């Protein structure tokens, strides 16, 4: 029997599973069981091994991703956590950057810190920015906290001291004292969880890690033992937000690195599709029920970042969440999904979202009591869906209800018919997504020229062509199997680990030896983490320096050579910095010194090369046969015309379809706009090209 690999993705509503064995894929979907998530997993496990006809012992690897950590933070269901911190700085996580995320709203609410003030416990100690001790740690003061920690039943402790990322001596001493006095309470150190400059982000990350740790560790151990009991003795790997896999030991220590692993899986899914099709430069576009997520993928690698905001209180507003400084796949999340509700603002402008009708009551056309028009209602009113076949026919859409809601909330206020109101709503949501994608590219120093958009999620393939047009993309790809994209992505993820450390230096006084020592240290830490799961598979190492002009605010990543650096490499690194800077910002600044803030070392297993499917001679392509036509209104011109409708299941490779047309399948519909031509490729993916 060939060995199999299993991926499990726990989302808010569904737990998705994907199993691959010898090139054959089986998928399953079961309901998530929030109280004890391992129950849902085990149910799915039994379902999928039955369906695939494999024995538990045939499984060689189990990969797991979950939103549990994120949800614990959002729902404030983590451990009772205390923070031990430098005297004089107990309010760092409450004061943040002292700003408001909305300039004009007098009634904004800021996120509550995960640790209340009375459990933020200052101790006398202080280091300076070079790590020198200005004030020794008062160990008696640490010991004096023990009775309070016991009395308050503290279940987890974060330690965050100023400048501890330079010198962890005091944090480690506090940890030793706590181990002695409270051996059962886990301790998270800021110098280990997120060893980087900027105390608010570092403390916030450390506190969040401590907050989710007991629950995550218990859950992961329970899951492991349930799987063992079911005969699945394969090692369990966890998907991290940065896109790599890690061992259960690392996951239990740094569970904060598991937040957003589901969306990360989606991005890796896209990256894999890009690799299969030989697409070097991609925009991943995943539009679901409440949000859309975009991610830039270059050279088959999703763009990564080092900061992330979790649990935003002002919906999707930057600055309204808790900052986390961890390696993440960088995604922009927009409050724009099928359930996003349309309204008219005081200036008579159509607005869409971020309020969402969710799955319940859902859009007005679901007929479950939703009274306000959602994006799905607008798509239906434009003729883009067949009311009887939506979601594989499981939901019968009520076109009348959609029309009524559009007319009441939008049309009547602007003197528009329901159909034109629908057009306005769809154009606006497409514009919003395109604008967010455009700003994201700017922030990343990238462009959309020559990029391919990979669309998935229920709404992605519906809106892809128009969003592509708006950002200037001429090629769209709609893969298959997008319903469990994240889980499939897990199966493609390399085993990897990223170590980031701060070491502040100016280029003019660059200390090569110190950097070599640091990088060597980081390499062994990353390799040790990967070794446990790579089983000797070949690995690859990438080194990056985060650099900026002296005085500038945002660092840019600069690739470093994988070797012991010599004095002669300094010029090379400076050259690479100038190159990268020009790519981001056009104009270099003459005569400025450069400073290096931190370094990252990533060690991952090598991703297998995939050959793109061969293309047939163009003579052999044939036009596909539509199953019927349907009247659809085009959002660019407003014109109504009969569009050809195709059934995806009946399309064979290399057939072509000229837009305007719609390809339907159970999970979504692919819209081929006027001026676009589609072809099904050798893998069964739909490739759309904009006519020149």
């Amino acid at each position: 029997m060939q060995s199999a690999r299993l991926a499990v993705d726990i989302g808010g509503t569904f737990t998705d599973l994907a199993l691959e064995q010898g090139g054959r894929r089986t998928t399953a979907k079961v309901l998530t069981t929030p109280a004890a998530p391992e129950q849902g997993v085990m149910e799915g496990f039994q379902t999928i091994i039955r369906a695939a006809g494999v024995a538990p012992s045939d499984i060689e690897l189990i990969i797991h991703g979950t939103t549990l950590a994120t949800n614990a933070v959002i729902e404030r269901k983590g451990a009772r956590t205390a923070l031990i911190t430098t005297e004089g700085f107990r309010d760092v996580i409450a004061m943040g950057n002292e700003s408001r995320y909305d300039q004009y709203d007098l009634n904004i609410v800021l996120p509550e810190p995960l640790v209340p003030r009375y459990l933020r416990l200052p101790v006398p100690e202080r280091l300076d920015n070079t790590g020198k001790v200005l004030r020794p740690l008062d160990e008696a003061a640490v010991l004096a906290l023990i009775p309070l920690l016991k009395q308050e039943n503290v279940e987890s402790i974060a330690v965050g001291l100023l400048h501890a990322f330079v010198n962890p001596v005091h944090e480690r001493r506090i940890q030793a004292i706590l181990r002695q006095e409270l051996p059962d309470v886990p301790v998270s150190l800021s110098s280990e969880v997120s060893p980087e400059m900027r105390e608010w982000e570092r403390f916030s990350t450390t506190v969040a890690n401590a907050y989710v740790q007991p629950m995550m560790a218990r859950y992961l151990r329970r899951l492991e033992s349930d799987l063992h009991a079911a005969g699945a003795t394969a090692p369990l790997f966890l998907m991290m937000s940065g896109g790599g896999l890690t061992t259960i030991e690392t996951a239990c220590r740094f569970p904060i690195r598991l937040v957003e692993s589901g969306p990360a899986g989606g991005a890796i899914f896209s990256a894999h599709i890009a690799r299969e099709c030989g697409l070097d430069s991609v925009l991943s576009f995943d539009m679901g029920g409440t949000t859309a997520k975009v991610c830039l993928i270059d050279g088959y690698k999703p763009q990564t970042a080092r900061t992330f905001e979790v649990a935003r209180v002002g919906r999707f507003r930057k600055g309204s969440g808790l900052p986390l400084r961890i390696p993440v796949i960088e995604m922009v999340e927009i409050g724009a999904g099928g359930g996003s509700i349309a309204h008219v603002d005081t200036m008579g402008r159509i607005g869409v979202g971020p309020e969402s009708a969710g799955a319940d009551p859902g859009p007005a056309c679901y007929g479950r009591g939703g009274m306000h028009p959602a994006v799905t209602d607008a798509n239906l009113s434009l003729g883009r869906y067949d009311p009887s076949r939506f979601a594989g026919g499981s939901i019968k859409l009520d076109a009348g209800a959609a029309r009524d809601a559009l007319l009441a909330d939008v049309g009547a206020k602007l003197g528009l018919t329901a159909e034109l109101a629908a057009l306005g709503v769809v154009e606006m949501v497409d514009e919003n997504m395109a604008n967010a994608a455009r700003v994201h590219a700017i922030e990343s120093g990238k462009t959309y020229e020559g990029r391919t958009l990979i669309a998935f999620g229920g709404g992605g393939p519906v809106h892809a062509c128009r969003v592509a047009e708006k950002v200037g993309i001429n090629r769209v790809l709609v893969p298959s199997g997008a319903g469990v994209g994240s889980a499939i992505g897990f199966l493609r993820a390399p085993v990897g680990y990223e170590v980031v450390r701060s070491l502040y230096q100016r280029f003019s006084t660059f200390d090569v030896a110190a950097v070599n020592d640091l990088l060597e240290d980081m390499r062994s830490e990353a390799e040790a983490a990967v070794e446990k799961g790579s089983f000797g598979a070949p690995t690859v190492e990438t080194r990056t320096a985060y650099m900026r002009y002296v005085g500038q605010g945002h660092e840019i990543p600069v690739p470093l050579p994988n070797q012991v650096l010599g004095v002669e490499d300094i010029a090379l690194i400076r050259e690479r910095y100038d190159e990268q800077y020009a790519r981001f910002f056009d104009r270099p600044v003459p005569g400025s010194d450069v400073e290096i803030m931190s370094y990252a070392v990533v060690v991952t297993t090598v991703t297998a090369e995939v050959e793109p499917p061969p293309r047939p001679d163009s003579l052999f392509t044939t036009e596909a046969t539509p199953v019927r036509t349907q009247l659809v209104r085009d959002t660019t011109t407003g014109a109504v015309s009969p569009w050809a409708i195709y059934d995806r299941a009946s399309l064979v490779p290399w057939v072509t379809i000229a837009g305007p047309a719609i390809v339907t399948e159970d999970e979504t519909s692919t819209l081929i706009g006027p001026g676009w031509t589609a072809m099904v490729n050798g893998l069964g993916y739909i490739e759309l090209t904009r006519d020149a």
Partner: protein
Amino acid sequence: MSHETNALAQIHRQIMWNRLIAVVEEQAQIMIRTAFSTTVREAGDLSAGIFDLDGRMMAQAVTGTPGHVNSMAESVGHFLQKFPINTMRPGDHYITNDPWLGTGHLHDLTVVTPAFHRGVIVGLFANTAHVIDIGGLGMGPEGRSVFEEGMYIPIVKCFDQGKPNETFFDFMRAGSRLPVELEGDIYSLCACNDAGARRLVEMMDEFEMTSLQPLAQFIFDSSYRATLAEIARIPRGTYTGEIYSDGYEEPVRLAASMEILEDRIEVDFAGTSGLSSRGINVPPAYCRAYSCFGIKCVVAPEIPNNWASLAPFRMKIPEGCILNAPRPYPVSVRHVIGHLLPDLMMGCLHQAVPERVTAEGASALWNPPLRGGGAVSGQSRGNKPVIADFEIITFNSGGTGARPTLDGLNATAFPSGVRTMPVEATENVAPVILWRKELKPDSGGAGRTRGGVGQIMEIATKGDLEFAVNATFDRVAHAPKGRESGLEGAAGRVTQKSGKTLRTKGFQVIPDGDRLILELPGGAGMGDPTTRDPALVARDVRDGLVSAANARALYKVALTDALAVDEPETTRIRLHT
């Protein structure tokens, strides 16, 4: 069909408006990413916008700070007077820091850049940013005229058809303590306007536009109509208010009389104190900017800023008053007074729409400009060590005023929109040590809703060597006032650790071995404190933000030993109030 064509055109204009706002947001983001001054990149003290050929602002980035809002909006008109549209060429960039043609002090640079589409000038991009150093005395109130406060840049070309004006840049480099940062910032301001212009051209191609004028008219019509509709919801009448600043040499009274009319809101500042001999004077554009911001937060917070949405707010600022400083009065720290204007506006509006305004807050930013080294301690002090040269400013805030249904925000900037820098970052750029930076108990004004809590900062240099602060603090002699029986927030304090009280304004040296203690004001409360939910009082006591003594004395809430609400005792003392 023509109805449908019109409807489609209407939808398309909305899409274009949306796009224009995205374009200026991109412009602002590029500035934040590329700027050198911490004031821009970390603090966000900036503004960006697009203007039509008549110099009317069409859209402004959401990112940015209110002080720059309509002052920058007014500024573009001044550029056009000196350099008319028909003289502008692609690749030109124009710059000024004239406080009366820009945004109120020499530290703010404003750059204007024409945008060309198919060889024809179609609009202008402008941005404003606060740079760290512009020479002169440095940020602070000590100047007796604007000429002492720094280099004065009239409206000039800094780039001529893409070529840098090297004479201009020579002057800049020579006149600043931080030449690299200043030059880098100017490059960054120009680059971000270029990026905006490129994006605009793409947009015009996509929507097949040849001119911005029809879109401008649509934006102005919609915004003006919407603003008038919001004004109509405010009861007509004339409302008055006053507020006091500590001033430099003497307290300053700011007085306003606000008239709500059918098509506008007019504010008359008659009764306001006269000019100061030091740099706390406010140029009129800056007075309009913050007054307008205060009104807009209450009256029309959701309407985007543009020429038409700002037009219905009119300010009458008498000559000779501190809010109408003429050239060459010193204006360097005009924000100290200017930041009180939203509180003054809300004092007036409270009489009309009490459910929509907040109590007074700490308001004025507490930005300690710190300097050390040779410029403070001389080249040598005998054998005593001197700290390495440094010049920094951090942005810090006290508490905001209590809101009708919510407590004020603790240590949060309002009305300014700036952010503070991490202590670790500050300590990496200058040899300073912040020994303490935390919330200050009992500083939030008591009320049904509590004022935001202020903070305490303890600042020294490495080795406790001598350094100086150019104090620009307020709300020390005049605490934030509550509304509807809410109590005052705690006043600020400026002292040395050894106990000496310092002046709130002006250059002062902290000697060897001593430290600077800043106690930032708390916001004021709203409503009778004895009507506050006792559970919230108990929470505040447990968190150490309110003392048990104040809980009892001000809120009439008694607590048990375990810091829970003592219900019977609370009922008893509340009954006897």
